[in-house]
């Protein structure tokens, strides 16, 4: 394996920046939805809030060094990938359940499909920067 690369430098720095933007975007969106119209679609809005938490977690753990944060980062990116695929499919199958777009509905089509690409790039980057004895 190549030299161990710091997780948050080089391309990792851009990754953390984009994750940060999505943490902010998903967080504020979920905040507004939960505060103003939670009763309209509780499941969709709770998923929205869950997505926000995952983005915040991924941002922080990608920016931190250390083995534990590495594992948490891998889990967050994986959950995110599963989430965008599941919610994306579900939102297309049952449009009524998602009256208001969440970050993950339509596979992130409202956000230029960045939510779909981001976890893949995140996992690839994490694989490259894996601590030697882990995984």
């Amino acid at each position, binding site marked *: 394996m190549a030299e161990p690369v710091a997780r948050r*430098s*080089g*391309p990792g*720095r*851009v990754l*953390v*920046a*984009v994750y*940060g*933007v999505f943490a*902010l*975007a998903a967080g*504020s969106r979920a*905040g*507004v939805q939960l*505060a*103003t119209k939670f009763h309209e679609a509780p499941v969709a809005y709770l998923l929205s809030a869950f997505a926000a938490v995952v983005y915040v977690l991924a941002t922080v753990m990608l920016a931190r060094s250390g083995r534990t944060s590495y594992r948490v980062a891998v889990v967050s990116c994986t959950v995110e990938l599963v989430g965008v695929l599941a919610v994306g499919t579900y939102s297309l199958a049952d449009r009524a359940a998602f009256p208001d777009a969440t970050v993950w509905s339509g596979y992130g089509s409202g956000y*230029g499909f960045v939510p779909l690409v981001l976890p893949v790039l995140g996992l690839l980057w994490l694989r490259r920067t894996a601590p030697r004895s882990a995984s």
Partner: protein
Amino acid sequence: MVHALAVSLIIGALVLAGLALVTAALNRRVGVVLLGAAALGEAGLLLQVMWAIVRLAGGARPAGGMPIFIGYLAGSLVILPVAAFWGLAERTRWGPVVLAAGFLVIAVLVVRMQQVWHG
């Protein structure tokens, strides 16, 4: 929202994103030019916030809803300073890429703000 200002902000942000990407392609770090570009962008966004405050004080309301509009307004001011700080800390070509991402986010934000304002 004043249309000419929004259009200039969107075009300006796209041009500055291009400038940041060229800087990255030339293998340079974030320097005075890109920091100045970020400051310029932030000044334009402040102008937009002031305009919004004047319009809201005058009784105009965003068609897409007040909380969302205020959220975008506040968010638009946070992006560039944080991107500049984060990009400056990177001593490689990836620093300018962070700023390029920041400028692209600003372009998208201003478009979205227009949509929220006009409904």
